């Protein structure tokens, strides 16, 4: 494929669910059940999946050189200027995008499909109107936003889609908005995410003001240049909590990820989000949206200073440990899965913080497959068991729901890191988790040897970083072809940009500010605290325990509640996606994604602190660590499973004995370390207290002033109205009118309408006038009269 074919296909895949959304908004009620659902499945996800498949197929056919070309020449459109910063709309086209895009569309398609079966069994009427179509409209909008997020080449657009997925999450958690619990859950999710987004905005502003661009690639290049030259963001002497401005930028961007990916202090919303419909939990709160935070960290990895990465690792480590412990005591099947999701997200974030970029993203992808499957399985169980979510009332469902039970077991094995150490046989977590731990081990125990002789920087470091053999030849082609697009024409270091995105990008002859700068940063990366490694290792043993516990309580043993057990059944519409995703778990563990991400690593990160068992750097040390650590981690599932089966194998008796012995510890875990209560006390109650104070002030100060003013105005109005207006102005006019009426009344009496009267008046009048004239002038004699008349 050539030109912008990939971009066109990807963009079509984004627009299709958007069209589906508007169709469902306007014509959803007419389509009704189940056609609204099919509209979302076909238009909302079928088309994107088809596009993703075409793109994936094409992309796999490209060699490293042409992939680099495509990434570099990816579509960009100058959209607007924000101050002096030009905003380029475009598609971030590299192997990570392709992998994520395919993963999201594939999983989402089957979850959409599952949703039709799931929703058919649910009442969806509120006040006599069906809201069935709304569910699928929201799902379509989510598909649009999530795919847009994956494609964004620009932090601004990434942020816009970021907020849109947050909105969809809010809407879908509160799908049953007529009930109390989902209402609170959706608010909690949205508000907690706002806290994270606040940090994200700070990070964005720092990128905007200090780096002067919002494009991901440009930002990374400028960041490296500024580091090398000690200018821009590195020239600032501002510090906060001992962090430099550059670190604050990285931490700020990570804060957004903390909200979306529900990392430790902001994790509280995710378990509550399980109040939404189960397909939503599977799609948004397990597979895709929560992974967006990890994706963001992976994308802004190049903007992270060592301190910021250390913060990322610490948060991830705390999250993965604490949440795994809570998962051990959960009795609600969905809550148990939610906490396991939190713990696994913690692994991903921890991996990124350590530098295990490839393993973390690989874990993200395999986790998406099997966690979506686990959630759909739990949805199947809940649906089959009459909306019963308490695992203590389940048990023995294996016979009633064999497909669900087996696929669920596949998920349990995958998340537990099932595999045979020393061979290539394993599932999901087996490949990713021990690699994260191997990197963590090198960072924690074996770091000084590697970091110190990095200090020289310059061309020296190139020898430490083995180039990827396959990329060697093809990369020359890129340089010889000389077809470069310098995105912003007046960039002084256009060269640097071009070289930085080539397959290995660290060729001594071509390295510019980038390689120099990043290698310098790399040399300052401190040793990882040892407790982080131990916690992560310990949690690898906890994970199999709680997952096996969950599976055993649900599917094995004796039925504990006859009513639930009798009702249990499975429906084909719903177990087809389960089987497909189980197969997807196998496939994703072995094929496609690992290679794609490893390929992306060299381009997407400029590779200084990317460590893996293959590719990038420190392969020797990590392989060495990996070769023995694999037995420790790979065997974890045996230990975890064994403990779980011993405790739960014969019902809940032993568990309740342990619960009595553990006492306060169990209570602490059951109450989630009281973090929710603490937040409730500090934020909710605090907010209420502030509200009360504000209300007191309002009532007694503001209201008082305004009421007094109002009273005064009222009095003034009364005075002016009653006294001045009614008696003064009105008095004058009424008086004039009254006078006119009275005069008229008096006058009209003479007009009797009788001619005889008029005649008499006329005669009387004339008589009076004549008499008066005579009296005045006297009576003239006839002679006088004659004289008077004589001519």
């Amino acid at each position, binding site marked *: 494929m050539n030109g912008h074919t990939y971009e066109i296909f990807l963009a079509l895949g984004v627009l299709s669910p958007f069209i589906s959304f508007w169709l469902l908004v306007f014509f959803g009620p007419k389509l009704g059940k189940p056609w609204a659902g099919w509209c979302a499945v076909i238009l909302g996800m079928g088309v994107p999946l088809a596009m993703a498949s075409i793109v994936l197929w094409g992309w796999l056919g490209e060699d490293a050189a042409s992939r680099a070309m495509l990434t570099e020449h990816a579509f960009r459109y100058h959209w607007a200027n924000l101050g002096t910063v030009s905003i380029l709309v475009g598609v971030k086209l590299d192997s990570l995008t392709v992998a994520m895009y395919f993963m999201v569309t594939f999983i989402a398609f089957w979850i959409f499909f599952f949703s039709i079966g799931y929703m058919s069994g649910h009442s969806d009427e509120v006040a006599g109107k069906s809201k069935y179509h709304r569910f699928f409209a929201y799902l379509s909008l989510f598909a649009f936003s999530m795919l847009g997020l994956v494609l964004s080449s620009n932090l601004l657009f990434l942020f816009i889609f970021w907020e849109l997925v947050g909105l969809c999450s809010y809407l879908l958690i509160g799908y049953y908005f007529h009930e109390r619990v989902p209402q609170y859950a959706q608010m909690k999710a949205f508000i907690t995410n706002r806290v994270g987004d606040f940090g994200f905005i700070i990070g964005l502003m720092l990128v905007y003001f200090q780096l002067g661009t919002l494009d991901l690639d440009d930002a990374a290049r400028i960041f490296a240049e500024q580091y090398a030259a000690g200018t821009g963001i590195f020239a600032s002497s501002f510090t906060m909590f001992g962090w430099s401005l550059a670190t604050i930028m990285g931490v700020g961007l990570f804060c957004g990820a903390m909200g979306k990916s529900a990392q430790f202090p902001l994790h509280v919303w995710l378990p509550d989000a399980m109040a939404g419909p189960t397909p939503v939990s599977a799609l948004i709160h397990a597979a895709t949206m929560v992974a967006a935070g990890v994706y963001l960290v992976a994308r802004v990895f190049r903007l992270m200073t060592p301190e910021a990465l250390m913060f990322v690792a610490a948060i991830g480590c705390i999250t993965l440990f604490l949440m795994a412990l809570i998962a051990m005591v959960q009795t609600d099947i969905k809550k148990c899965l939610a906490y396991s999701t939190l713990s696994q997200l913690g692994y991903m974030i921890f991996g990124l913080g350590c530098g295990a970029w490839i393993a973390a993203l690989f874990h993200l992808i395999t986790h998406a497959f099997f966690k979506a499957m686990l959630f759909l399985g739990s949805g199947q169980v809940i649906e089959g068991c009459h909306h019963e979510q308490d695992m203590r009332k389940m048990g023995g469902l294996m016979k009633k729901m064999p497909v669900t039970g087996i696929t669920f077991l596949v998920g349990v094995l995958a998340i537990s890191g099932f595999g045979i150490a020393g061979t290539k046989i394993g599932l999901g977590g087996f490949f990713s988790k021990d690699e994260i731990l191997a990197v963590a081990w090198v960072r924690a125990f074996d770091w000084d040897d590697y970091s110190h002789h990095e200090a020289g920087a310059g061309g020296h470091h190139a020898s430490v970083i083995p180039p990827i053999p396959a990329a060697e030849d093809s990369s020359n082609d890129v340089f010889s072809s000389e077809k470069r697009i310098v995105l912003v024409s007046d960039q002084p270091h256009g060269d640097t940009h071009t070289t930085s995105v080539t397959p290995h990008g660290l060729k001594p002859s071509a390295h510019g500010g980038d390689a120099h700068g990043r290698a310098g940063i790399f040399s300052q990366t401190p040793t990882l605290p040892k407790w982080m490694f131990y916690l992560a290792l310990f949690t690898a043993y906890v994970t199999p325990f709680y997952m096996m516990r969950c599976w055993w309580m649900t599917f094995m043993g004796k039925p504990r509640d006859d009513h639930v057990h009798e009702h249990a059944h499975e429906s084909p519409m719903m177990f087809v996606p389960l089987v497909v995703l189980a197969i997807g778990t196998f496939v994703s563990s072995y094929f496609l994604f690992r290679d794609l991400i490893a390929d992306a690593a060299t381009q997407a990160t400029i590779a200084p602190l990317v460590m893996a068992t293959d590719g990038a750097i420190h392969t020797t040390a990590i392989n060495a660590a990996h070769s023995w650590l694999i037995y420790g981690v790979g065997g974890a599932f045996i230990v975890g499973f064994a403990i779980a089966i011993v405790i739960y194998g014969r019902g809940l008796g032993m568990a309740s004995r342990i619960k009595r012995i553990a006492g306060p510890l169990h209570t602490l875990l059951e109450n989630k370390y009281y973090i929710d209560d603490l937040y409730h006390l500090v934020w909710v109650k605090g907010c209420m207290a502030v509200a009360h104070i504000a209300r007191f002030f309002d009532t007694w100060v503001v209201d008082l002033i305004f009421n007094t003013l109002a009273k005064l105005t009222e009095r003034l109005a009364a005075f002016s109205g009653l006294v001045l207006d009614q008696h003064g102005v009105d008095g004058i006019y009424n008086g004039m009118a009254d006078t006119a009426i009275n005069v008229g009344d008096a006058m009209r009496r*003479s*007009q*009797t*309408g*009788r001619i*005889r009267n008029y005649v008499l008046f006329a005669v009387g009048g004339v008589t009076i006038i004549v008499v008066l004239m005579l009296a005045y002038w006297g009576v003239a004699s006839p002679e006088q009269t*004659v004289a008077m*008349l004589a001519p």
Partner: protein
Amino acid sequence: MEHIGLTHYLIVAAVLFCCGIFTMATKRNAIGILIGVELVLNSTGINLVAFDRYMGPGRLDGQIVAIFMIVLAAAETALAVGICINVYKNIATVDVDMASQLRG
């Protein structure tokens, strides 16, 4: 037997005038009132002719004005009868007390 002079004419005219006024003031029939008006006009005609005969002999001013007045009285009568007919059309009577819509 006294010689008949101006005064006698004037007295007759005055009596006639008073009769006319009295008729106008007392009659309720529109035609009667019209007759009263004619009496008043004729008394005026007598005055005009008498004054012409005694105050300005040899001149015909008074007679001419009297003839004019008779013509005018005829015209006025025609007009008044027309009005009477219209009043009758409207209120089905010629009793002027009934035609009092314009009273105040």
